[in-house]
């Protein structure tokens, strides 16, 4: 049976594009391996060059139904023994995960609109996810998910929002992704792929904490951690939102009406006092480091070479990151250490610049001194030559 695939040879000669297309797509797909062939999914007899190959008795399936697809793919992809022989690098758990996912459960329940394997991976032209052309490639996956989830009509029976993609694109995650940051999360980074299930209030911190480990650990030491759980609030999302997560620096910790804290604590005296303290500390640190950055930038624009400036800037950024993480504890006392290291970095940067500027000023002063004495020398030489001329005119030959 191996090596003989009369399906493809015959279908490639057919004039009906619907029948010829699959044979063409197949030869460049991940499944072109002869051990899979057309029969791997469609069954039938690939050795029979006649219409008899399509006999029902051979189990031939022309158009697998939506609900059948996952089973067909899983027939091989969940078969560890088979996969190991064909391509040992492939995982085998996708079918099991998919069956548990919301997508899988809807499809199993007979929902024709629920996605199955082919919806995302492609049919005859299925490509490995590493291929840039694959719709599930990291570069394309947001377009794939958004293709359905941004479609209001398609989503209307499920009564879910359709703005996730557009929100993500403007979020700090989406912007980093657009810039090509290889660590920036896209849809499946939080939602999973085969196991696609929206994180709920109790699990959202696990999703965020996969990357934001330190923030999560610090958050769990805060009074919010317990309080949120008791009230069923989605931990990180309560302040940061989800798809449209904004840069941390633009979040308002404070007591102004637009501040995040005011949303829940407007009438609580003690939390507002803490918020005010933290906001004041953050504002001070932010202003001081912005001033230090501006000083370094001004020096650079003025053409000064400031030795050690890039190291000082790195120190500053590191200290700021640390401070932002510690904010999650909501404990003003714990902000002191990172603020102290910010202040050290700021002082260091400013000292570097002022050293260079002092040197520059000394040099300028020295220049004017040198200019004066050189001017005097020039003048006396000029007078000397005039004197020589005058004496020569007065008689001496």
């Amino acid at each position, binding site marked *: 049976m191996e090596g003989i695939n009369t399906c493809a040879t015959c279908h490639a000669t057919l004039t009906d594009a619907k029948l010829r297309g699959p044979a063409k797509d197949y030869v460049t797909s991940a499944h072109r391996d002869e051990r899979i062939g057309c029969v791997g999914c469609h069954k039938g007899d690939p050795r029979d060059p006649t219409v008899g190959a399509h006999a029902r008795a051979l189990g031939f399936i022309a158009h697998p139904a939506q609900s059948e697809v996952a089973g067909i793919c899983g027939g091989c992809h969940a078969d560890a023994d088979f996969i190991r022989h064909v391509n040992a690098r492939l995982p085998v758990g996708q079918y099991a995960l998919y069956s548990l996912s919301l997508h899988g459960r809807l499809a199993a329940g007979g929902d024709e609109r629920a996605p199955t394997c082919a919806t995302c991976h492609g049919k005859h032209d299925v490509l490995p996810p590493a291929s840039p052309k694959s719709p599930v490639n990291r570069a394309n996956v947001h377009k794939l998910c958004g293709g359905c989830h941004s479609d209001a009509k398609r989503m209307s029976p499920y009564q879910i929002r359709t703005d996730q993609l557009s929100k993500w694109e403007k979020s700090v995650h989406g912007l980093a992704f657009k810039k090509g940051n290889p660590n920036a999360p896209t849809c499946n980074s939080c939602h999973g792929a085969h196991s696609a299930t929206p994180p709920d209030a109790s699990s959202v911190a696990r999703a965020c904490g996969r990357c934001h480990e330190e923030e999560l650990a610090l958050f769990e030491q805060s009074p919010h951690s317990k309080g949120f759980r008791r009230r069923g609030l989605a931990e990180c999302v309560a302040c940061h939102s989800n798809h449209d997560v904004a840069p941390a620096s633009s979040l308002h910790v404070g007591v102004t009406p637009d501040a995040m804290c005011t949303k829940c604590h407007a009438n609580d005296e003690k939390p507002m006092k803490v918020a005010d303290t933290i906001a004041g500390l953050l504002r001070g640190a932010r202003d001081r480091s912005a001033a230090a950055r501006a000083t370094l930038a001004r020096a650079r624009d003025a*053409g*000064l*070479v*400031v*030795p050690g400036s890039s190291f000082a800037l790195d120190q500053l950024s590191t200290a700021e990151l640390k401070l932002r993480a510690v904010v999650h504890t909501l404990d003003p006392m714990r902000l002191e250490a990172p603020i102290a290291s910010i202040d050290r970095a700021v002082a260091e940067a400013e000292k570097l610049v002022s050293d*260079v500027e002092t*040197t520059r000023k000394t*040099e*300028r002063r020295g*220049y004017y001194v*040198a*200019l004066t004495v*050189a*001017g005097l*020398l*020039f003048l006396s*030489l*000029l007078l*000397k*030559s005039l004197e*020589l*001329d005058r004496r020569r005119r007065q008689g001496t030959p």
Partner: protein
Amino acid sequence: MMGTDGQGSSWLGARIGWDAIRATLSAQRVARRNFSHFLGGITLLLFLLEVGSGVLVLLYYRPDVAQAHASLERIVGEVPYGDLIRNVHAWSSDLLVLSLVAHMFTVVVRGSFRSPRELSWWSGQALLVLCIGLAFTGAILPWSQEAYLQARVGSELARYVPFVGNWLHHFLRGGDEVTSSTLQHAFGFHVAALPAAVTALIFLHLFFVQRRAATTPRDDDAPTMPVYPDFLVRQAAAWTATFVVVMTLAIFAQRSVGVAADPRLPSVVGARPPWYFLAFHHVVRVAPRDLLGMDGARFLVAAMCGVGLAVVALPLLDRRGSRLTAYLAWIFLLACALLSAYALT
């Protein structure tokens, strides 16, 4: 300033025979002329400034691709007065080429190259070539993006020089490619071989000039003055003025050290050669790809070599120092100025 009063001999004067030196210098007479007369001396001062500042920069500079640029940044940023000394070195080098070219130009216009002063002319030409070599090798040493590009393009154009092009290309790069050995090679020539050769040639040049004082054919009856003290006092004033110009540029027009060279980065946008190659750069840029059946760049380099040879042979081509040569020199200068101005737009 010593012994200008001439009353007897000082302690030192008695020991070096100052009276005899003074008598010789006073007996030598040069024409009373305008500013152009001091250009040779100004060039000499600029060369001495280059040697002085170069020796100083050498204390901290490291000729190694990994460290060259960082060591320059350290000189400019950390060592006291390092920025001043580095900028004196960079600006004097430009002014040196400028005053050399101006010196040569006035000699051509006045016809002072004519027989019997061929040797002064030729030694001067050799000095010009060596100083451009110094400028080229010196521009490589910062090992910044610009320096890397200049090493690459400059040596590539040298490939088109007729007959010796391939050898010159290989020689300038210190190998087939622009690598760490290009830097090493340029460093060696810049700090040792070339300055030594220039110093020797300066003595030779002064000797030739001295033996056949460079008066012009057209003002043989012009008033003269003794070399000492009249001429030297004026020359000293010109030196002081030059010093002030260099110092002012070094303080108020500091030269960028650029960013460290990284051959993986794309070349700098709108990179330009040093100013004295701007005119040629512009011609190469606008010239058609083919000229008289030759590759455009190859043709132009060959043509420039031809002009260079004609300039060297000037005392043989024009034995009397005719006015025609002077007019041609003016036209050439104006054309170069115009082309350079275009190149900057």
